[in-house]
């Protein structure tokens, strides 16, 4: 796929307000289900998705530290929120607010992950762009093994300075109409 991408022609496509992207993966992160909204937006047919690793659509602007944090959160059995930039098959991109939860079967065994993605709102995207850029820059100065952990620690420390946990930070970015909940 990467060979077809021309970054200069890459343009943003958007998820509609009333649309949800739903995908499921097995416990190793391979896609087991993707809904039609996803296939249309990402421009992949089902046959090219099933069994493929979910990082198929990962965008290079996304810092690895965010994914490291996601896996750590999921492995602790908690849900993960993230503002994420993804590639489409043709090299365009879109922003989503991803919410990933571990999926357990009736015997309480981890079966996979369930991911719902909503449109994130402009404010959230504008806020995370400079943060992600700093993280990517930090990662580029470190070796591959230590970069994700280092940029993740930087992110958490930076948010801590603003008095935020990671989750409270992401939830604070949502437009009021996305979450009917007021912060307690």
């Amino acid at each position: 796929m990467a060979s077809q991408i021309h970054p200069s022609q890459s343009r943003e496509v958007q998820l509609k307000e009333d649309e949800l992207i739903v995908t499921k993966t097995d416990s190793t992160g391979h896609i087991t289900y993707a809904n039609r909204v996803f296939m249309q937006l990402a421009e992949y047919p089902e046959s090219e998705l099933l069994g493929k690793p979910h990082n198929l659509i990962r965008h290079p602007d996304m810092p690895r530290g965010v994914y490291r944090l996601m896996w750590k959160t999921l492995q602790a059995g908690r849900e993960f929120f993230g503002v994420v930039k993804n590639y489409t098959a043709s090299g365009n991109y879109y922003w989503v607010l991803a919410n990933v939860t571990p999926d357990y079967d009736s015997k309480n065994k981890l079966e996979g992950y369930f991911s719902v993605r909503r449109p994130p709102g402009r404010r959230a995207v504008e806020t995370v762009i400079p943060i992600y850029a700093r993280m990517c820059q930090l990662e580029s100065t470190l070796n591959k093994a230590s970069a994700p952990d280092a940029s993740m620690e930087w992110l958490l420390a930076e948010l801590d300075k603003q008095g935020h946990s990671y989750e409270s930070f992401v939830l604070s970015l949502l437009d009021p109409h996305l979450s009917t909940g007021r912060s307690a």
Partner: protein
Amino acid sequence: MARRTSPFLRTRLGFWLIGFNVLTICTVLASLLLPDSWRLAVEVFLVLLSLLLSGMIWLGSGRIFTVLNTLHEQLGYACDGELHHRASRTRDMGEVGLVAWELNDFLDLVETYFKEINTSFRRVSENDYSRRPLSQGLPGMFAESLQNVDSAIQAMADNDGYIRKNRLSSQLAALNNPHLRHNLASNQNDLTQISTAMDQVSSITRDTASTSRDSLESATLLTGHMDTIAGSVVSMNEASTALAQEWTGIESSLAAISAIADQTNLLALNAAIEAARAGEMGRGFAVVADEVRKLAERSKDTAHRVQSVLGSLSSRISDMHARASEAGTVAAEVKASVETFHQRFATLAEQSDTVLGQVQRVRDMSQVSLQKVGHVMYKQMAYHAIEEGAGLPLSNDLTSWCQGEGRNSFGATRAFGQLAPADERVGKGVELALSTASNKQTLDEDAIIQHMRVLEQDSAQILQLLDRMVEEKHLH
């Protein structure tokens, strides 16, 4: 969500029906038109064609039934509460494929809905009300239901906050009230002591005043005595002047007597001579003798006068003596008065010192009592601020007092040295409790109460230290 809606199965069914009908028509036409030799071959061919078509239909519809079975199973799982199963690989399945996708979409919505509900409530059960169900992207009833759940969680959060606040208030009150009562009792005690001290001061002042009055009377008396002395001295002066004049009288009298004596002597001599010369002629003697008799009378008279002057003199001298002794008595009295006066003034000075000491002690006690009231007020403001979750609107006056006036008045006492660290601990304690209370996410009453408990201990120490400072300073 508009999807491709080609009536795919229906078209295929149509083709199949056309195929079978064409075969049937061909069979009929063959039996009517063809000669027997050809007919058999054509009919065999048509039967084979029919079998082939049946086989194709069987195979072609097989996958559809597989998908239908999958859907059947999926619905069965959903009825058993497992919402995570989905149908995939439904390409070219026409209407069945559409149904499969619609079911997938429906299950996506249902699963998303329950995930939101479960996650939110699990967090609520952990006393975390910050994760609210997100209704965006869900249609109709789903979104409406999640919004209702959100309102319910908000109500629960409000209620929880209210309960925690109430619990905190009652715990704070339970902690505060006995201390407040104790503090107030201590202040009352201070005021009682101040009042007693003031009573003493006033009684001393009263004594001082009466002593002063006595002193004044003594002074008046003394003045009277002094007047008497002055009068006596004037009288004595007059008496001595009179005495001096009397003495002059005596001297002139004595001179007169002496002159008379001289004349008498001369006459006596003349008489003696004349008597010797003429007896009959003695008539002249008789004149001399008369003169001598007159002289004798004058002498006698003078002597009488001298005697009377001496008598008067003697009486004046005794009068002077009496006056002198009177003056001596007065002087002794004056001396005693002055002695009393001196003693009175000494007592007065002593009492003034005591009064001064008492007044200073009362002043120190009032100052410390003010600081105690200030400290109790500060504590009450802190309790109030914690209950309201607001900032601290009052600065700690004790701290500035310690650095200024307090240091001047009590800097030398040991207790003062311990006051500043205790005050600092109280300040820190208040800060800690306030920052814990201002955490809006979860109200950690236990931690707040713990902070305040430590603070009350430090506060009790401060009040003790304040008392001890006054005691130490006025120990002597």
